[in-house]
């Protein structure tokens, strides 16, 4: 038995918003692979829960009329990895969430929960940052959409206002078109582990493949919340892809990141693997984009 004070179940967005207004103290539970574990640990013991898990309308991936990708917040990691739209336009997201926990966790864990949990190590977060994802929240005043960078306020705290629930994550067409990316998770084990560092890079090359039109890079666990390395992005933009550029791009990330010492890894070590993963992920992204190194 879990130490739960009360459970309120929502079956529609409308009902979820109403329950959020009626029970402002209650914690939202999606798949529960974080919330239930925290209850078991005692951290959230005695909590009131609003369960949104049974809201099937928040599951699934589609393209809207402007061809933006819409990922329902309750879509589980396995479904994201197996989805043809994800595989065609943003395959790296499917690969990144395929490294969360183990198979059973990827069946219950949701991308909405992964982002709303607000932790820097979330495997989906760095890729969503690197692709300028937009978070859609629905509340009593209607729908609000904000860039994911603004959604993360501080470690463990995201911008969900009273009465709101996260309903979708959007990847705008301008953000994914002709982009190719690669994610590297550095952890002690290949499964059931939390990232020591996560690095997601993507590039868009010019039609002749000789110029990096745009490079984007984001990290998890390189700061209290996921972050972009904009200095490195500026270094690569407009340049010809080469091994030397990969090195300069990778070293520039040290201007942007600020990892800390923790029991998982030292700051120095995180900086070292941040540079190395940036270099490797950049080269792999260029290769996926069909580029050749000068």
């Amino acid at each position: 038995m879990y130490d739960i004070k009360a459970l309120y179940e929502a079956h529609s967005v409308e009902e979820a918003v109403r329950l959020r207004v009626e029970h402002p103290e209650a914690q939202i539970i999606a798949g529960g692979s974080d919330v239930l574990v925290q209850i078991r640990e005692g951290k959230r013991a005695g909590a009131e829960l609003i369960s949104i898990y049974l809201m099937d309308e928040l599951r699934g991936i589609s393209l809207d009329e402007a061809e933006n990708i819409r990922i329902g917040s309750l879509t589980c990691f396995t479904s994201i990895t197996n989805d043809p739209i994800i595989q065609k336009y943003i395959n790296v997201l499917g690969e990144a969430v395929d490294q969360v926990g183990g198979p059973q966790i990827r069946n219950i864990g949701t991308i909405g929960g992964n982002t709303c949990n607000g932790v820097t190590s979330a495997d989906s977060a760095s890729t969503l940052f690197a692709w300028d994802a937009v978070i859609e929240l629905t509340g009593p005043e209607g729908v609000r959409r904000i860039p994911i960078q603004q959604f993360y306020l501080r470690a463990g705290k995201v911008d969900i206002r009273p009465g709101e629930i996260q309903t979708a994550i959007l990847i705008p067409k301008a953000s994914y078109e002709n982009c190719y990316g690669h994610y590297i998770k550095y952890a002690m084990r290949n499964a059931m582990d939390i990232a020591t560092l996560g690095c997601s890079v993507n590039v868009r090359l010019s039609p002749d493949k000789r110029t990096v039109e745009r490079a984007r890079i984001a990290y998890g666990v390189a700061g209290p919340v996921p972050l972009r390395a904009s200095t490195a992005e500026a270094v690569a933009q407009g340049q010809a892809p080469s091994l030397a550029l990969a090195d300069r791009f990778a070293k520039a990330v040290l201007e942007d990141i600020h990892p800390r010492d923790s029991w998982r890894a030292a700051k120095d070590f995180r900086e070292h693997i941040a540079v190395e993963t940036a270099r490797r992920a950049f080269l792999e992204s260029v290769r996926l984009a069909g580029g050749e190194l000068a």
Partner: protein
Amino acid sequence: MSIQYKHIQCTINGRPVDKMVDVRASLTDLLRNDFRLHSVKKGCEVGECGACNVIIDGRCYNSCIYLAVWADGKNIRTLESLLGPNGELSDIQQAFVDEAAVQCGFCTPGFIMTAVEILESGKEYTDDQLRKALSGHLCRCTGYENILRAVKKAMYRRLGKPMPEA
């Protein structure tokens, strides 16, 4: 404080059931306490070890971090569903016996239910893919190689192909 219950209807091992469920219960609690399905083990109870793994609507879940009330309308299968009418072992269970893939046995039901999902996909997997598919389970006797071999053997039998030489 009053205890909160919810009425659910679901299918457990092919049998339709109707139950009043304590909202605080995990699916593990429900299956073990109310239905005496003791193949569903309480291991870590935080979704790390896979000992409580069951199949819900065709996919594997750790039932310890799955609220019992979410079972409403679902089709749930545990290891007990694999036995034949006279208690005969299924092919995957027999493969575990043949390959000595059982030591203390505590992780076995969870592993076997993941193996069932793998086998029912009808696909052929490489060793690396099988290792990844089985990675949500911990075996503290560390008998992983025999488990891998048992799943592989059952997979090739079902595919009607000879098992490649190691």
